[in-house]
């Protein structure tokens, strides 16, 4: 190797260098990235096109267009029927355990949110009123609008589950708030 004509004679603390030409594939790779970058910068075939905000607005519009029609309006009768269906109430309990216990406590006795086991209701105690409160939330008090997070059947189910807790008056629950709905 010592007689390689490309070896530079000079030594730095014993280290030598070859004067090898640049590897062709490396040069090509470099040029390719440069060409790509120029094309991208001027939107020639690749690029950010109309820009991220326009892309976002298009994405939102497309999603809106593709969204299934709004779910059928849940009627008071339907909710009343569901309230007697133990399977649905049980499904509602699962939704409640995942999403609601952090504020209303596992037994519904209330923690940050109000007690759900008494007979007093702040935003109305009928099934339809509860359904509305859950769907739209009470932003000012920290109740999130679950309509955007849960599917319609989950909202229905959790509504009837919450209604099923009414008047169970668990021990250690928060003091009643709101209007009494017997």
């Amino acid at each position, binding site marked *: *190797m010592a007689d390689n*004509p*490309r*070896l*530079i*004679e*000079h030594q*730095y*603390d*014993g*280290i*030598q*260098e*070859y*004067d*090898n*030409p*640049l*590897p062709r594939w*490396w040069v090509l*790779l*470099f040029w390719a*990235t*440069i060409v*790509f*970058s120029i094309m*991208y*910068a001027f939107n020639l075939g690749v690029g*950010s096109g109309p*820009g*991220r*905000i326009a*892309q*976002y607005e298009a*994405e*939102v519009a497309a*999603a809106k267009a*593709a*969204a*299934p029609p709004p779910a059928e309006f849940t009627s008071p009768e339907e909710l009343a029927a569901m309230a007697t269906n133990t399977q649905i109430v049980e499904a509602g309990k699962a939704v409640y355990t*995942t*999403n609601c216990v*952090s*504020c209303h406590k596992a037994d519904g006795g209330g*923690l*940050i949110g109000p007690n759900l086991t008494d007979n007093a209701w702040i935003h109305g105690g009928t099934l339809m009123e509860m359904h509305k409160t859950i769907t739209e939330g009470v*932003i*000012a*008090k*920290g109740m*999130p609008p679950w309509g*955007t*997070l*849960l*599917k319609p059947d989950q909202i229905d189910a959790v509504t009837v589950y919450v209604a099923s807790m009414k008047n169970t008056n668990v021990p250690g629950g*928060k003091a009643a708030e709101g209007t009494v709905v017997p």
Partner: protein
Amino acid sequence: MADAQAAGRLETFSYDDDIVRKFLFVTILWGAVGMLVGVIIAVQMAYPAWNVAPWLTFGRLRPLHTNAVIFAFAGNAIFTGIYYSSQRLLKARMFSDALSRAHFWGWQLIIVAAALTLPLGFTQAKEYAELEWPIDIMIAVVWVIFAVNFIGTLIKRRERHIYVAIWFYIASIVTVAILHIFNNLAVPAGLFKSYSLYAGVQDAFMQWWYGHNAVAFFLTTPFLGLMYYFMPKAAEGPVFSYRLSILHFWTIVFMYIWAGPHHLHYTALPEWASTLGMLFSVMLWAPSWGGMINGLLTLRGGWHKVVDDPILKFMVIAITGYGMSTFEGPMLSVKSVNSLSHYTDWTIAHVHSGALTWNGFLTFAMVYWLAPRLFQTELYSKKLAEWHFWIATVGILLYIVSIYSAGVTQGLMWRAFDETGRLQYPDFVETVARLIPMYWTRVVGGTLYLVGMLVFAYNIVMTWKRRAATYAITTVQAPALTKEYTPEPMRPGVDVPATAFGRFVAMTFHRAWERTPIVFTVLVAVAVIVASLFEIIPTFLIKSNVPTIASVKPYTPLELAGRDLYIREGCFNCHSQMIRPLRFETERYGEYSKPGESVYDHPFLWGSRRIGPDLAREGGLKSNLWHLRHFENPREINPRSIMPAYPHFSTNDIDFPGIQKKIDAMLMLGVPYGDAINTAPDMARQQAREIAADLAATGGPSGMETKEVTAIIAYLQRLGKDIKAAPGVATTTKAGGQP
């Protein structure tokens, strides 16, 4: 060849190896400490009970880990290698033994100061630039000492030309100084508190100009320099290509500096900056690989040696890791890829696959090579070095495979929509809980790497114990450089081309630069500064980058105090405050963030990782009481949460009189504070009373009006609210058009 020239007076001198030994020891010490902290925070993510409030929570320890491994471990490793190799490559003892020692002890003092202040919560909230202003000044002073010592050595060298390793050292020293100074400019508001000179978009830009180039000029270029010295030494063969060295050196120096904005894709940073950052990152692929090629091809004809030489094994993995990371980096900088990877563990995996191999393994190789030479004895055990190699390699594999999986899993879960057009995983914690098994795997991988580190430390300490009774000091003789010098062809049979263009292509001009290191240093500085200004000037001067939003007002005094608690606890390490204009983000968090929203944010707190959810629009989403309970014990509210508990918020008192100092500093930065100029403490007390009254009224504890919890709640309840006060203004504002 120099013999043919008029030789200078023959001089006799010796190298300062004592300073190299000093740096070598602390490299090992801080490496073990930094990696241990890494393992601790890895456990904290899988098992939050390991957070010990207030000093040992993830938010405070994570910067300690990054600072320790970058500036203490890698930093001291760089100095070890630079002090050893530069003296030999320049045929000169370091310029001043006193400066060498001032550099050594100064740097260790900085590290100790960092190790004390970070757990205490003193932080500037800028990644890898967390240290507060007095320490920043120390860093600047020590760095200048190092630079003077190094440049002094360049001047008194006895080697006509400077070798490629020296070029990389020069680039690192010059650029780190520039980056450090300009990113850390701040107005002090107390001995250990300061506010960044820049706000919002500009602060974010400066931070990632710095942050990305800390990777470039602290973890890449100095290590390339080390590679160019220690690789041919260990492989006992010539470097593959001198002209590849020239080309990849200058392209790296000029192009790296542009790449920072790729850390801010889809944020409120103007899109033109983001595009520039992406394209320069893409173009960096080949220049980076130039270093890999030169490293790996130096082994040509010597691959058989790798089988039984642990040093070469470490080097091969180091350089391969460098190659993989410098391919992955450009890929991650592509906007569409980044929209998936950003804020996830993918970034963490990327960093570690680079750092554990390139920085870690190259350091191990270097120290294994140096130890017998510095201690003038044989390495204690080659077998242990082999064990170290295999344990650490398995550790790396476990670490990166699990964390890549975690990153991609979480990124995909965040963006998943179900058939009804709703987010598939609307509850953020679901996307965290899924990662816990991967986090445990990471703990195992990281622990193996740490075990390897301890085996390494043991091996080196045992080698040191068997050192020579007194170190033999080798004297070296070399002629001093003379003023007269006639350039000669570099190798036989190569003539200097006749035309200027021919000389340019043959890069003969570069040989002349190598003879004038001061000119070389100036050229590097010019390249770095010019490249920086191309992005900095438009970022600061173009008005349309940050359209004003009239409803955005400064934080109230109490909110500002709360913001400083958010900074103290390092909340920004896990929570972003930057909603990207991507549908899956706006569905989850609300309207995307506008540049005008953070104009009073000194420093910006956009964050870079979402271990918890984004908080840009947190204001008003939860009740005050929810926050209080959540701080006291997040798992009571959300059993699967991995957030540390902050019970001290409810017991620590707010320093009300101290708030005035904060407001005064903000006024100096031009934040329009009006009424709060002299009455900040009273205004804060009033707001705290209101929040405390609400807490008590909703069933929470009473007597919170003097406690920190009211300040942090005030801040969180403010986040993202201003824009809601003026609907319509926000949605039509274009976030940074083309200039």
